[in-house]
């Protein structure tokens, strides 16, 4: 065991404090908009803190560190692109301002406004599938961090994961988005402090330091450890894909729920560009930890996921290790509660509730309490809470099954699962908000074709002998499947809409008075 009782005491105090906050937050929940978007009351600084925290979960640190261990400095470009695109979005308000102006809580709600209830149901189903799969490795990677960091035997990875999930589910059920915002802020401070101290210790450690880390990356990874374009995991196809996905990636519900929780469109835009400045650090600092682990162990065959936590558990002094672990546990809680809430919210509001509304034949318009004529506000909260529990149980089972079957790194898995939904959004949201000819037929075509290649990549890599020849090129490398799916989805929206303008006239959106 690497940690002392002081370290464990720090973690326990933090967990106790957050659970108390969760219980307090329960009293602040009056309706579904309080539960899902904190009553749309967030000011700039709280919203930035909570958005940065969501983008800096324990799983993010783990998969970026794995990239640093596996590919050295080459993936640093991820952080640079992330910052540049977020600042552009924040300054221009691309997508985010218009969605905030329409006062939607989830992206599929926009589908009902722009297209119809059927598209909302279809889009909600694809978003939920993508979101739940994307989250599939979060708990197991979180548990691997704790195991590596504390030195607990690897055999305990499953019980540790289940224990961590129980704490998170309890906390999320208590306070919804209000409690999420509070943990996010605590995580923002704790984790940043932990990052700062860990970076300092790595840079001044006698066996590490910047020069030794650079030398280790060169020794073990060669040019591919520095040159992003010479690295087979990245290259030009990845560059085009990643820039496209970052531009449309703001529609990812856990991330989108933050700007949608702000006071108005102007605050939403500001939140984007301020949090965008931290994008480089959020990616590059954990990647640097991963590269440092490569130098520390001097063994490229050391487990890429366990290397970073094992190194940090060994080099951080007593007290600092506890602080760092509390920060990482806060990051685990913050990401899990955000994601659990986001995906269960999507399933309830965009699948269950529309189905009930269709059976009732109620009007396709938002009610005063933020519902759409299906479930009532209290029923939506009840179902959202029930789904949080069900999703957590699914994640535990999926993570244990899939962790050793991943065709590429965890970072690539996150993006290929996200693209199941992102690709369709190129047409449904990107063109839907800015092209007045976008209609329901184009939207369905975009969602369907956008999901096809990423799903084919995931399924056929589990059963490679069934891969048809025409799909082999895309199944070999997720970058190809992802980029092709985005192009296909955009084209599907354009062709589908243009061919059916008379039979399915597009709906106009009103953006007058938008800030």
């Amino acid at each position, binding site marked *: 065991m690497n940690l002392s009782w002081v370290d464990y005491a720090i973690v326990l105090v933090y967990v106790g404090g957050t659970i108390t906050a969760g219980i*307090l937050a*329960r009293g602040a929940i009056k309706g579904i908009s309080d539960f899902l978007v904190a009553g749309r009351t967030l*000011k700039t600084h*709280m919203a930035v803190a909570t958005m940065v925290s969501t983008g800096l979960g324990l799983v993010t640190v783990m998969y970026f560190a794995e990239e640093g261990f596996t590919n050295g400095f080459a993936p640093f470009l991820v952080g640079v692109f992330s910052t540049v695109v977020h600042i552009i979005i924040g300054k221009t308000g691309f997508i985010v301002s218009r969605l905030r102006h329409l006062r939607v809580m989830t992206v599929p709600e926009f589908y009902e406004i722009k297209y119809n209830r059927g598209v909302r149901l279809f889009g909600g189903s694809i978003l939920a599938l993508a979101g739940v799969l994307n989250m599939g490795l979060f708990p197991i990677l979180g548990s691997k961090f704790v195991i590596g960091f504390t030195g607990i035997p690897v055999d305990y990875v499953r019980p540790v994961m289940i224990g961590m999930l129980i704490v998170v589910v309890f906390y999320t059920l208590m306070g919804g988005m209000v409690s999420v915002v509070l943990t996010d*802020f605590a995580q923002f401070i704790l984790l940043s402090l932990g990052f700062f101290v860990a970076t300092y210790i790595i840079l001044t450690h006698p066996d590490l330091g910047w020069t030794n880390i650079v030398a280790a990356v060169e020794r073990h990874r060669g040019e591919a450890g*520095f040159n992003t374009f010479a690295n087979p995991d990245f290259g030009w196809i990845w560059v085009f894909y990643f820039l496209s996905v970052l531009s449309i990636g703001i529609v990812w519900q856990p991330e989108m729920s933050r700007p949608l929780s702000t006071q108005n469109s102007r605050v939403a835009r500001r939140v984007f560009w301020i949090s965008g*400045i931290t994008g480089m650090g*959020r990616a590059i600092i954990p990647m640097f930890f991963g590269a440092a682990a490569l130098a520390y162990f001097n063994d490229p065959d050391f487990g890429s996921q366990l290397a970073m936590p094992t190194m940090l558990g060994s080099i951080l002094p007593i007290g600092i290790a506890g602080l760092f672990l509390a920060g990482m546990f806060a990051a685990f809680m913050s990401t899990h509660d955000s994601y659990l809430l986001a995906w269960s919210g999507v399933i309830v509001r965009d699948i269950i509730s529309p189905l009930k509304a269709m059976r009732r034949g109620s009007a396709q318009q938002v009610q005063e309490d933020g519902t759409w004529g299906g479930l009532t506000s209290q029923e939506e909260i009840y179902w959202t809470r029930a789904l949080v529990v069900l999703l957590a149980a699914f994640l535990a089972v999926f993570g244990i099954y899939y962790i050793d079957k991943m065709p590429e790194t965890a970072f690539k898995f996150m993006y290929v699962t996200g693209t199941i939904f992102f690709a369709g959004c190129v047409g449904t949201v990107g063109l839907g908000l800015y092209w007045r000819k976008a209609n329901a037929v184009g939207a369905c075509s975009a969602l369907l074709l956008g999901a096809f290649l990423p799903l084919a990549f995931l399924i056929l890599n589990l059963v490679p002998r069934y891969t048809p020849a025409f799909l082999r090129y895309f199944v070999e490398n997720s970058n190809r499947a992802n980029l092709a799916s985005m192009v296909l989805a955009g084209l599907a929206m354009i062709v589908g809409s243009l061919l059916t303008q008379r039979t399915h006239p597009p709906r106009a959106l009103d953006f007058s008075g938008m800030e």
Partner: protein
Amino acid sequence: MGMEAWKNLWTVVFFVASLAFYTIVLVVGSKGLADFKNMLVAMVAARRIPPGGPDTSRRQP
């Protein structure tokens, strides 16, 4: 671009990224603390109010 150029580029990027990250954390952390405190106070106040809303019949003289 040669390997040495890539090394120099990533060295600069790492330090710029770290500086930008910690600067935003400092600014947002200090300014957001007041919002954080207000949310906690509001939550505690919300728990003290009974489900039917505040009791207006018991006004102070």
